[in-house]
């Protein structure tokens, strides 16, 4: 008797994958519901689309970093607190420079650089805790969540730091405005970063190693992949992306605010997992993660437009997450 061939038959066609199904479902549901109420025009208006993209920018950039970390088999719970810390540090540096030398473009450049770097430092710290102290990523980043939030609150003196009157730089206003969203540099930075992340994952050796480490760390090590360096790099990269997201947040909120980004980590993890990534690593794509963020923002926006109570928003997001992952599981079960 011959045994089963090592290769199964090629799939005749491929069904749309999880995130697309969820996206289409949410879109159809909302369009239907809103059409019944006769508010379809508002929901699909250009203005509303602008708001959607505007609100999605920060979580989407954070989601890119989270995607990288999840693919490597880790998790980063500290992103929300890091975003808050970045806004505070950026504001502190900006106001200090402004006080010392008056209005100057250098102020903004240095402040933004400081903000992004502090994000990178937080990421590096996560990476060192995970690789050198061998802490589980959940514990390491949960600890960093507390530390970052605490440092942010301390640096801000337990208040919200505003710009000194008239000291708001022009670019902050530009980024903060959703009226001209399609030319918003914040949004275009997201597009650029998303493309770069996709290229990193698909075309580079580092991206390949990321999937390998997340899929089977022991095998990756055996095959000569520098697992420690890969992990250090991925947490640092995620930190830098979160740092950039923090700078956008700083502009959006026009302040350094230590209470920003609370539960952002949960939103972002939800979005990336809806987008097909797995908490056990080795899976995930940029397109999926971005769709996940879009679905999340769509639900939030749609629910407030539709005038349903806010609790529905939580229930919908939770149900969608569970339904989506179940669907993926069920489909995988059918394949194998």
């Amino acid at each position, binding site marked *: 008797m011959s045994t089963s061939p090592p*290769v199964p038959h090629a799939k005749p066609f491929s069904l749309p994958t999880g995130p697309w199904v969820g996206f289409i479902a949410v879109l159809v549901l909302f369009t239907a519901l809103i059409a019944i109420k006769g508010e379809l025009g508002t929901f699909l208006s250009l203005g509303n689309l602008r708001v959607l993209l505007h609100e999605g920018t920060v979580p989407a950039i954070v989601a890119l970093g989270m995607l990288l970390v999840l693919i490597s088999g880790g998790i980063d719970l500290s992103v929300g607190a890091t975003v808050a810390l970045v806004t505070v540090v950026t504001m502190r540096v900006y106001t200090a420079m402004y006080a010392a030398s008056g209005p100057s473009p250098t102020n903004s450049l240095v402040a933004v650089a400081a903000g992004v770097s502090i994000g990178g430092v937080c990421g590096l710290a996560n990476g060192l805790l995970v690789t050198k102290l061998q802490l589980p990523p959940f514990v390491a980043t949960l600890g960093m969540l507390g530390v970052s939030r605490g440092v942010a609150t301390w640096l801000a003196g337990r208040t919200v730091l505003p710009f000194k009157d008239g000291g708001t730089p022009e670019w902050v206003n530009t980024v903060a405005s959703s009226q001209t969203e399609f030319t918003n540099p914040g949004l275009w930075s997201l597009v650029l970063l998303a493309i770069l992340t996709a290229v990193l994952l698909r075309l580079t050796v580092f991206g*390949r190693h990321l999937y390998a480490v997340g899929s089977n760390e022991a095998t990756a*090590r055996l095959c000569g992949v520098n697992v420690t360096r890969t992990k250090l790099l991925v947490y640092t990269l995620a930190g830098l992306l979160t740092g950039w997201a923090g700078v956008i947040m700083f502009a959006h909120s026009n302040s350094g605010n230590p209470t920003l980004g609370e539960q952002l980590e949960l939103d972002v993890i939800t979005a990336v997992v809806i987008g097909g990534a797995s908490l056990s690593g080795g899976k995930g794509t940029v397109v999926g993660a971005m769709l996940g963020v879009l679905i999340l923002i769509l639900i939030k926006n749609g629910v407030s437009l539709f005038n349903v109570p806010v609790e529905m928003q939580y229930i919908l997001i939770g149900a969608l997450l569970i339904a989506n992952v179940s669907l993926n599981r069920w489909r995988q079960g059918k394949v194998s």
Partner: protein
Amino acid sequence: MTPRLRMTGIRKSYGSTAALRGVDLELRPGEVHAIVGENGAGKSTLMKVLSGAEQPDSGTMEFDGARFRPPGPHAARDRGVAMIYQELAICPDLTVEANVTLGQECSGYGFLAAATNCERVAAALAQLGHAEIRPDAPVSSLNPAGRQVVEIARALLSDVKVLVLDEPTSALAQSDAKRLFELIKSLKAKGVTVVYISHFLEELEAVADRFTVLRDGLAVGSGRVGEVPRERIVEMMVGRAVTEQYPRTPHAIGAPVLGLTEVCGKEMPNGVSLALRSGEILGVAGIVGSGRTELLRAVYGLDPVRAGVVKVGVYSSERATPADRIGQGIGMVSEDRKEEGLALELSIRDNVALSRLGDGATFGFLSRSRLRSALSEVLTRFGVKFRDADQAVGELSGGNQQKVAIARLFHQRADVLLLDEPTKGVDVGSKADIYQQIGEAAASGKAVLIVSSYLPELFGVCDTLAVMCRGKLSAVRPVSEWTPEQVIAVATGSA
């Protein structure tokens, strides 16, 4: 002839236990060299030293006459020494191409050279005679044999000179094993030295040129395969003359305790009927994938029974959970010790007691002392070698782990024992202990159903034998009415 690789006086200790106590080994170019020995004899450690996964405490290695001391597996691979582990090292989420090239990707400025990589992989697979495996297929779609080929292709890509295979057939069906042997021969023809670790002496005769026997961290003998009789090799492995490989305890067969009528599972089994009587040891032969494991799982309630009746003693039911079956007196040992059979991080005590914790408890609170006394008897009977019962079961050797897994059924006081490959990856000494316990269980009136891919074992231990093929079970006949040739003919569907 100058040796390809020479190991001299290799020593390695873990804490106070010496795994290797000065081993000498010589490998020639283009030979298949078998390493045999009981579990714990030091085979794995020696090969880990060779492949750079472990550093020896002392001793030297020479590769083609030059000093060889790889600081890690990658360094060893760069020199042309690669090892294929028993638990295959595969990234299940990646494609075949990504798995084969992992750690040795062709790239420029950090970017993958996709086309070149695919060509290299396709060439390596073709060279191995497996051109049907597509480089872009997800590796999770391959069966174990296919995954093994992927790993060998990985070694081939790095221009392997010495390839170490650690029990490569343990996960393979017979026909796949045959293809592997052909592959080994073709590697040998290319001048690759293959080190072959196995428990199956028949395999050595089929594939190896020379052999070295390890025992207690020492190389106790070596020679040319075919020149030394098998009994002598077994003697060297065990360190004493094994007069009878299959100890038998006289036992009488009684009334039926387990009856299956036309039992069908999800896909397999497909209409299986049999009657197992108390005091009977019934063997089920067949190739991997013939539905033997699925049969046991269906009987035990792990997989649904689609049609047919399972009758256990007085109970007759269509639906049952494993908990129901345990209550009815059935116990099962899984073929997959690491994933299913044992909770490796839990203690020996917890592992043995798991299926009958109730006896050691009062109102749900466990009594440690009561459990301890109940367990020590079972563990001693099986001759499990352990420090103390609180030790994690994962720290034991394979043979001792398996004894713990089987001892659970005895603690559970099961009347019907379903044993799936009970001696898989187990050393000769532990095997004898396990056979002894199976025999004594039958003598005390228990019924035993053994699934095994190792024919001599089935012939040595069982009273009756049936063969499974494509989900169907042949008639059950006394062992004396079967010949190994007949069994293989039925198993391969050519009877």
